[in-house]
């Protein structure tokens, strides 16, 4: 398992801390079991919440009786949907009608719409008692027929989940750029693919959702210790629903046990916690059970692509495509229908497709609600574009490497404007592909193929080339609903110099393992001329720090841009103030003649004349008599970073939707046993380009993690429902995430193409675009070439599906047709 990092030629060696793999500041506490995760928070008299959940996918609730549960000694109380509906308003909906009309509350009201939906909450002295007492809650249901197949959701005879919406259609929109008809007229060949399916899964963070909520009755404020990764979003969902201002909701996080987007939409449960803390007059703990998480939280968007047509020239040049995307939102729109536009950040993938039409529809089904999951919505679309590339190559007998190189956007075209106005900032995709192929020894692949054949195995190679678009322009939400008052983005940091010279940094983010304390310290140390050990970055997030703004949080690949630029801005303000103070104290030396170094402000030409930071902190904070009246120095600086964005053109659905576009090229080599369909990934390379890397080791860690999740998703992980709407994979027995023994050898490589649009040259990264899913799908299809020529049409290919493709390749061949124009 050798791990190689290719030394990229273009890396500009940096002086100082940024660019170094500094060991993480977070690690010491985490290695000693001294992290503070949400379930570690304890309060006197705290009660434990257990949710009673629906056993039906779709049913009317005819009666609820909590009296027997409430009689038990040690049970503090309960909460029902009826109470919730009287104490709160439905959550604000992002969608236009019909989705806008649905009424979503913290608990089910009158009806349940998926197995595992929370119906009643019970609070008791211990977790065990709360769980036992939940068994005594009596709920009568009148079952209804469920909708589990999104493709049937709009049929006339299909039951409707939300009567208020009138049908199961939640949102739809048509996107069209370029001249699609002309592209098909110009094409030599048209490749048609009738159906592709991106499956339902998520990243299953090892720590489930949770909260400890306290209510301060005197000031009417809740303190919400939680692991929500986007408190800004939770707040704007919760405040209006609870009929309180956002000042009444104080979010606090420290260590979060993985998020991957799955911890963005816990606002319904947090509302239930708040109502219970107020009702019962005591703090409450909610810690989700693993089964509850699988049943009810944040499934990734399941998406179908129908009637795809691809316009191709005979030399392999791709002109355009049209398709119909159908998104299965599950029972509620908790962050949706934003998935209906987020994909548009990467419309052509890495390719020079100029003409694109995509008709998007999102429907409700009796499954758990979907929410962002690592690679959110772009991953589904990039899987589609990568599948299209490899199916076209397969059907037209072209080399997948050559088709990519012919159609990749070239380095000399950067910055590149896509058909819908997104501006890819920098990158050299062809060079990345060469590097990735080199790392797995692509030149020797034909002999390896023969060797595998001699052992009775089918070897296949597949490429996944993707983008990790980061730093959202929230104006894209208006393409979903023009009435929404969101646009741009922001993030906050504060940096102060305290009395004894302590450099204290606060962030607005909610890190879940991305090492923000470390990378922020690296940026601060370089500007202030001190050591990273001298920089104290507060762990986690607290609204009381006042270092957050509307979009604060940790999601959507942005910290290296939004977070670190805010840190840089605040630190530069502080540095200027230190110099201003130094100028006064050192006898009127001009600020330009001063420098910050070795924890002091000093005269460049006379380093002996130095004022230590400790003296600066002491003077301003505790010994300031006699300072000039006009000395505007607080040594406590706050900076809000606002990326340069415009509101997109809503008519044309045109504009730059994210600021940076990190790129990934992965190559997977698989060997299939034709007798059984069993296969292994025998070699793997992952090349990443996220611009300047502040901490290469942390970046590589993100690449590895995204790779592992993609391997799991491609081979095993699926939230599969039966026809009655029962989740068949509600725990880690049935939902197989990768273990150590599943991991292939991995070689990583990096190229650095600094972003011209960010102050540090960085790009957001971490989501990885699902490159591994695409690579493994392509590798399986390649391995089956000449053995029935099956087309890989689903993003998850467990052994049984590979076996089916070997046995009945014609069933997948029927999905594809090539016509000569």
């Amino acid at each position, binding site marked *: *398992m050798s*791990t190689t990092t290719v030394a990229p030629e273009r890396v500009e060696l940096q002086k100082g801390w940024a660019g170094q*793999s500094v*060991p*993480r500041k977070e*690690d*010491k506490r*985490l*290695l*000693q*079991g*001294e*992290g503070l*995760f949400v*379930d*570690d928070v304890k309060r006197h008299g705290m009660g434990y919440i257990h949710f009673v959940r629906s056993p039906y996918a779709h049913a009317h609730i005819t009666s609820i009786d909590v009296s*027997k549960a409430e009689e*038990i*000694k040690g049970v503090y109380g309960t909460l029902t949907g009826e109470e919730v509906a009287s104490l709160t308003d439905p959550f604000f909906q992002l969608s236009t009608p019909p989705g806008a009309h649905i009424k979503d509350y913290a608990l089910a009201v009158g009806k349940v719409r998926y197995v595992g939906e929370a119906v009643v909450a019970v609070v008791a002295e*211990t977790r*065990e*008692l709360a769980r*036992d*007492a939940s068994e*005594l809650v009596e709920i009568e249901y009148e079952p209804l027929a469920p909708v589990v197949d999104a493709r049937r959701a709009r049929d006339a005879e299909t039951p409707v989940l939300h009567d208020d919406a009138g049908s199961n259609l939640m949102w739809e929109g048509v996107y069209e750029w370029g001249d699609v008809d002309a592209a098909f007229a110009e094409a030599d060949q048209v490749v048609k693919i009738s159906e592709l399916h991106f499956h339902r899964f998520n*990243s*299953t*963070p*090892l*720590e*489930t959702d949770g909260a400890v909520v306290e209510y301060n009755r005197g000031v009417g404020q809740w303190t919400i210790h939680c692991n929500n990764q986007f408190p800004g979003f939770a707040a704007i969902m919760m405040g209006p629903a609870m009929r309180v201002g956002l000042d009444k909701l104080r979010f606090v996080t420290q*260590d979060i*046990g*993985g*998020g*991957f987007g799955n911890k963005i939409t816990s606002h319904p449960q947090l509302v239930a916690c708040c109502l219970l803390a107020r009702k019962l007059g005591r703090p409450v703990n909610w810690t989700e*059970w*693993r*089964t509850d998480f699988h049943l009810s939280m944040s499934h990734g968007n399941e998406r179908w692509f129908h009637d795809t047509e691809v316009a191709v020239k005979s030399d392999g040049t791709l002109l355009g495509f049209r398709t119909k995307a159908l998104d299965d939102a599950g029972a509620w729109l908790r962050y949706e229908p934003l998935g209906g536009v987020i994909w548009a950040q990467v419309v052509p993938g890495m390719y020079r497709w100029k003409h694109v039409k995509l008709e998007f529809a999102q429907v409700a089904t009796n499954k758990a609600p979907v929410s962002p999951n690592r690679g959110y919505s772009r991953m589904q679309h990039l899987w589609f574009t990568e599948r299209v590339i490899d199916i076209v190559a397969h059907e037209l007998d072209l080399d997948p490497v050559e088709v990519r190189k012919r159609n990749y956007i070239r380095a000399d075209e950067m910055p590149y404007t896509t058909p819908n106005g997104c501006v890819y900032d920098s990158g050299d995709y062809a060079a990345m592909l060469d590097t990735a192929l080199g790392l797995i020894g692509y030149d020797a692949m034909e002999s390896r193929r023969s060797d595998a054949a001699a052992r009775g195995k089918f070897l296949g190679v597949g490429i996944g080339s993707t983008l990790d678009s980061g730093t959202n322009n929230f104006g894209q939400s208006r393409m979903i609903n023009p009435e929404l008052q969101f646009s741009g983005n922001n993030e906050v940091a504060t940096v102060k110099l305290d009395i004894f010279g302590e450099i204290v940094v606060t962030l607005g983010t909610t890190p*879940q*393992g*991305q*090492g923000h304390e470390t990378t922020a310290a690296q940026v601060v140390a370089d500007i202030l001329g001190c050591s990273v050990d001298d920089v104290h970055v507060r762990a986690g997030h607290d609204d009381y720090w006042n270092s957050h703004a509307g979009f604060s949080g940790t999601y959507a690949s942005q910290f290296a841009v939004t977070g670190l630029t805010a840190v840089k801005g605040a630190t530069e303000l502080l540095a200027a103030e230190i110099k201003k103070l130094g100028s006064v104290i050192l006898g009127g030396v001009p600020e330009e003649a001063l420098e910050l170094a070795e924890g002091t402000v000093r005269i460049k030409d006379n380093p002996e004349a130095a004022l230590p930071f400790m003296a600066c902190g002491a003077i301003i904070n505790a010994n300031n008599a006699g300072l000039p009246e006009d000395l505007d120095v607080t040594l406590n600086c706050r900076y809000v970073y606002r990326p340069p964005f415009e509101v997109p053109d809503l008519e044309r659905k045109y504009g730059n939707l994210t600021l940076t576009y990190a790129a990934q090229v992965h190559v997977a080599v698989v060997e299939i046993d034709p007798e059984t369909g069993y296969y292994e990934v025998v070699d793997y390379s992952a090349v990443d380009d996220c611009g300047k890397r502040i901490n290469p080791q942390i970046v590589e*860690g993100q690449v*590895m*993690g995204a*790779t*592992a*999740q993609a*391997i799991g998703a491609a081979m095993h992980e699926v939230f599969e429902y039966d026809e009655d709407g029962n989740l068949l994979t509600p*725990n*880690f*027995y049935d939902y197989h*995430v*990768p*273990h*150590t*023994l599943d*991991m292939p050898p*991995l070689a990583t490589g990096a190229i650095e193409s600094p972003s011209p649009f960010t102050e540090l040259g960085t790009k957001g990264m971490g989501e990885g675009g699902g490159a591994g899913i695409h690579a493994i799908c392509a590798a399986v299809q390649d391995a089956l070439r000449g053995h029935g020529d099956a087309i890989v049409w689903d993003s998850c290919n467990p052994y049984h599906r590979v076996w089916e493709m070997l046995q009945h390749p014609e069933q997948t061949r029927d999905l594809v047709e090539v016509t000569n124009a």
Partner: protein
Amino acid sequence: MSDDTATVSSSRAITVTINGTTYEREVEARKLLIHFVRDDLDLTGSHIGCDTGNCGACSMIVDGTLVKSCMMLAVQADGATIETVEGLASGDELSVLQQSFREHHALQCGYCTPGMLMSATALLRENPSPSEAEIKKALQGNICRCTGYWNIIEAVKAAGK
């Protein structure tokens, strides 16, 4: 019904020694060892990641044997000597294994880390220089969703040398 619940809630006194400290507590008979250690003794370093014994975040060494403490009742640990992540470092000084995890970036969110460290500690006691295959086999019961395991395996390998 309420009588039945009262029966399930019956409790008894147990004594356990964890990282050298002896604790005597009254504990509900149905309470899991992991909940006892976390909720009753405030040793929150060991974590819970599943309901089914799959994830290993709660791994501890009980009387010299590696166990998943969610698969054991607290009353079954009566009289046992238990080691948890809190006992690995000597004061402020990280163990060789902990240090190796730090150097190799073998943790991200840190949630699986305590269990991973206990499994690796148990392995290294039995087999001070494990091969890569032996490390993978020994850690197969511990799920990590952040790292993809590569750096964890490297860290254990380096600590074993």
